[in-house]
């Protein structure tokens, strides 16, 4: 089912230029999402995940953010050359974003229903009464009683606020939904509820989704495809099964090993050693080499090329070539 | 209202760190340089100009001279050199304002700190007392006290410091309350440090940032108030070369000799400007999140 992708990002390079130096947030990001597909973007904090999401909306704060290179096509339209007006008509309507922290993502001095109704008023030729009616419908849809619509955000719990944020993002019935760590700020029990709801709604409207997360559990639950991002670049990409069952990149491997194994609790966690590199001073060659257990001499000198296992699954790692990648990882997995 | 939250330093060398941040801020450095020049001028003035001979001695034959090579800022209605009087005037402005601020800081700071630290009744009494002071619009209070007590430097200092006490009490109280319950204070309490020790060694140092900023800006306010009071004839009486009273004495000669009024005004303005630049810079340097 290879048809026209809803989102295509090619070689996106974004820098934040501050007084303290240049932070390389994205270093040639490639990503594409088909209609209705859910794509997981997985990585640690500071890997450039949120920048990627904002880049699609053309909302990277400038200054200090500068898009140095790359192309973004949203439903066929070139975002990079789109005017402010064109972007405004796409935001909230063709593409919308659920932000990480529901506590700070809502305007504290505006009622919840007014904030949602704005989406309709901005994108549809609609009367105020109708937009309010639609707002109440979508509130009910995300599980909030319509009569609570005239309350203010501070009267809602965290989980409820996130439902409001989700309602707002879904109001325009977008073709692409960017969800930036939508459940991280929530309690575990609420997380499951919200995630379940998102999944249902997405299926109902056949919305494509970019799920930005650091949580492999969420990825396993909702994603069709997965990209693992490290220091602003995708190091491994493939279908869900490729990533989970045919893991190739040492970093992806490390992410899995950092998770506790509930079946065998005597097994020790093997967290990835070291910390994310300073993005204003990235290591040469493969940026992961200082933390990699399989580091070779070449890794610090040459950027690893992309090696494909099949049409969908690739890694960027010097451990692999066309031959050995098919056979299975040189990395032994417990 | 700009919230000034105390920055809690964990790393060593916070003073160096703050200074480095301050040094990056060009306007703050400009303010610092001007303030430094003023202080030097105030200290050096008696060695450059003879008080009796140059500053207050009347010289009628030389009166109302426009600015020239001999009299950079001209001469006033009594023939005195305005430049010399302005330079000498910095002594009064700085001495009075520094003293008044120091007193206000000590008393207001003490009241605010113990109120904030102990809370309860004591805090309540102190703050209700401060409410009464704060209910009277700022400088109006200083005007009343200064006017009632009569104009000399000591009374002026009393008036200015009393009207500045509530501000300092408030600032210290709120920053003490924010740090009071922070973990390291609880830790200090847990190892048996007594209250006085905790206040002196832990609470006060961590409340310093807002206090330093407020102090700098308060000096500016007080210098403005001194000039205002003297302008009304309630501050420092002639013939002392106080900027506000110099400015006031030029009022009669506004037409034709507006420089008599203009130059002392510039002196006040530049001083206040410098203190504000420095204060803003300090705030940014002490609390980078506010930038």
């Amino acid at each position, binding site marked *: 089912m290879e048809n026209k992708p809803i989102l295509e990002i090619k070689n996106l390079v974004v820098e934040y230029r501050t007084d303290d130096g240049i932070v390389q947030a994205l270093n040639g990001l490639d990503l594409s999402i088909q209609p209705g597909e859910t794509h997981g973007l997985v990585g640690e904090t500071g890997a450039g995940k949120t920048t990627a999401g904002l880049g699609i*909306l053309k*909302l990277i704060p400038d200054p200090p953010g500068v898009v140095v290179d790359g192309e973004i096509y949203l439903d066929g339209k070139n975002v990079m050359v789109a005017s*402010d*007006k064109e972007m*405004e008509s*796409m935001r*909230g309507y063709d593409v*919308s974003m659920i*932000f990480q922290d529901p506590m*700070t*993502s*809502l*305007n*504290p*001095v*505006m009622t919840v229903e007014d904030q949602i109704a*704005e*989406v309709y008023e*901005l*994108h549809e030729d609609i009367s105020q009464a109708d937009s309010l009616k639609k707002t109440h419908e979508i509130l009910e849809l995300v599980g909030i009683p319509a009569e609570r619509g005239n309350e203010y955000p*501070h*009267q809602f719990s965290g989980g409820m606020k996130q439902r409001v*944020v989700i309602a*707002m*993002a879904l109001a325009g019935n977008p073709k692409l939904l960017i969800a930036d760590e939508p459940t991280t700020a929530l309690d575990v029990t609420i997380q499951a509820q919200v995630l379940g709801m998102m999944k249902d709604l997405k299926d109902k409207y056949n919305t494509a989704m970019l799920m930005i997360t650091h949580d492999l559990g969420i990825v396993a639950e909702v994603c069709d495809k997965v990209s693992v991002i490290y220091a602003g670049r995708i190091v491994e990409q493939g279908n869900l099964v490729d990533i989970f069952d045919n893991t190739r990149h040492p970093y992806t491997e490390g992410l899995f090993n950092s998770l506790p194994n509930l079946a065998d609790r005597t097994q020790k966690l093997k967290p990835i050693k070291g910390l994310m590199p300073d993005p204003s001073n990235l290591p040469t060659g493969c940026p992961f080499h200082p933390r990699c257990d399989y580091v070779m001499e070449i890794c610090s000198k040459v950027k690893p090329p992309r090696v494909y296992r099949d049409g969908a699954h690739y890694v960027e790692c010097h451990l692999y070539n066309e031959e050995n990648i098919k056979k299975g990882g040189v990395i032994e997995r417990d | *209202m*700009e919230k000034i939250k105390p920055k809690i330093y964990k790393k060593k060398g916070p003073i160096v760190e703050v200074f480095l941040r301050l040094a990056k801020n060009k306007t703050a450095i400009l303010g610092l340089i001007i303030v430094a020049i003023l202080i030097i001028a105030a200290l050096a003035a008696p060695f450059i100009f003879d008080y009796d001979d140059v500053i207050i001695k009347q010289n009628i034959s030389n009166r109302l001279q426009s600015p020239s090579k001999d009299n950079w800022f001209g001469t006033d209605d009594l023939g005195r050199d305005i430049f010399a009087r302005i330079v000498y005037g910095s002594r009064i402005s700085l001495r009075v304002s520094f003293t008044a601020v120091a007193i206000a800081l000590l008393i207001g700071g003490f009241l605010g700190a113990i109120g904030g630290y102990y809370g309860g009744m004591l805090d309540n009494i102190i703050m209700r007392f401060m409410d*009464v*002071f704060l*209910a*009277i*619009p*700022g*400088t*109006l209070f200083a*005007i*009343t*006290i200064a*006017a*009632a007590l*009569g104009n000399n430097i000591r009374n002026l200092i009393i008036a200015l410091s009393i009207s500045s006490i509530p501000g300092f009490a408030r600032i210290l109280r709120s920053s003490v309350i924010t740090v009071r319950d922070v973990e390291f204070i609880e830790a200090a309490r847990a190892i048996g440090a007594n209250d006085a020790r905790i206040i002196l060694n832990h609470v006060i140092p961590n409340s310093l940032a807002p206090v330093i900023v407020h102090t700098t800006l308060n000096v500016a306010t007080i210098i*403005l108030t001194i*000039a*205002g009071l003297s*302008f*009304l004839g*309630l501050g420092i009486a002639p013939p002392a070369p106080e900027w*506000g009273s110099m*400015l006031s004495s030029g009022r009669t000669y*506004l*037409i034709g000799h*507006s420089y008599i*009024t*203009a130059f002392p*005004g510039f002196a*006040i*303005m530049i001083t206040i*400007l410098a203190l*504000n630049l420095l204060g803003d810079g300090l705030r940014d340097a002490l609390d980078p999140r*506010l930038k």
Partner: protein
Amino acid sequence: MWKYILKRLLYLIPVLFGVTLLVFLIMSVAPGDPAKVILGEQATPEAIEQLRVELGLDDPVLVQYMRYATGLLKGDMGMSYKSKDPVAVEIVARIPTTLKLTLSATLIAVLVAIPLGIFAAVKQNTLFDGLSMFIALLGISIPIFWLGLMLLVLFSQRLGWFPSSGAASWKSFILPGVALGFHSMASIARITRSSMLEVIRQDYIRTARSKGMPYRDVITKHALPNALIPTITVTGLQIGALMAGSVLTETVFSLPGIGRLIINSIQGRDIPVVLGCILVFTIGFSVVNLLVDLLYAYVDPRIKAQYT
């Protein structure tokens, strides 16, 4: 909400008694016998003594204060030592001038400052931003009375556009209003800019933009209401400063307002009038502060929730 307002007004009563007691005490320790000041240097000791008894100045300070306070409770502010008129009459006659002056200064300050602050923040680090913040910095540094004098020289004496004294027409309040309001304008503009800058960086601004709202609308509909909260605080404080500043401005422009009255009365040791003026300023300031708090509740539902 009404309960809150009532509570605040009731709390004002003890504060006002505190204020009057404070001023009473200050005036009583002050050197200079009112009777002597009123009668002049040549008065005989007998005449002075007689006036002292007449004015009740021979009683202990606290007795004098109690007498004043009971009068105040009945709405009586006493008689002026000098003119023998009721203090209330003297003050009421001068309120319009001071009110017009402070109102025009407030209007000038707010109407200029808020747009200036917003534009400076939105156009951060541009020439406009730099220029307007430089003007604001000058504004907080210029002494009111000096600015007043310079405006007088330029616009009234050189150009003859405005009268130099008196309160005859609205024109008389333009220069004093600018002189008095400039300082507040500067403070309000600075706080508006900095709170606007703070708000623009908030997540909910990004949310609003992600809905597809044009940036202009995001600024006016989402950023401004949030940024106004600190602006309102500073404006309230500035109105207090304006009242104090009116003393200086009325002196410079020879306006017959309460500010002039208080200075003359202090110099003449006319204690009841001084107390009356301070009382009026304090009530005015307190009412402004109450209005500010109510305005908060209007713009910020979180604060409103605390009041009910």
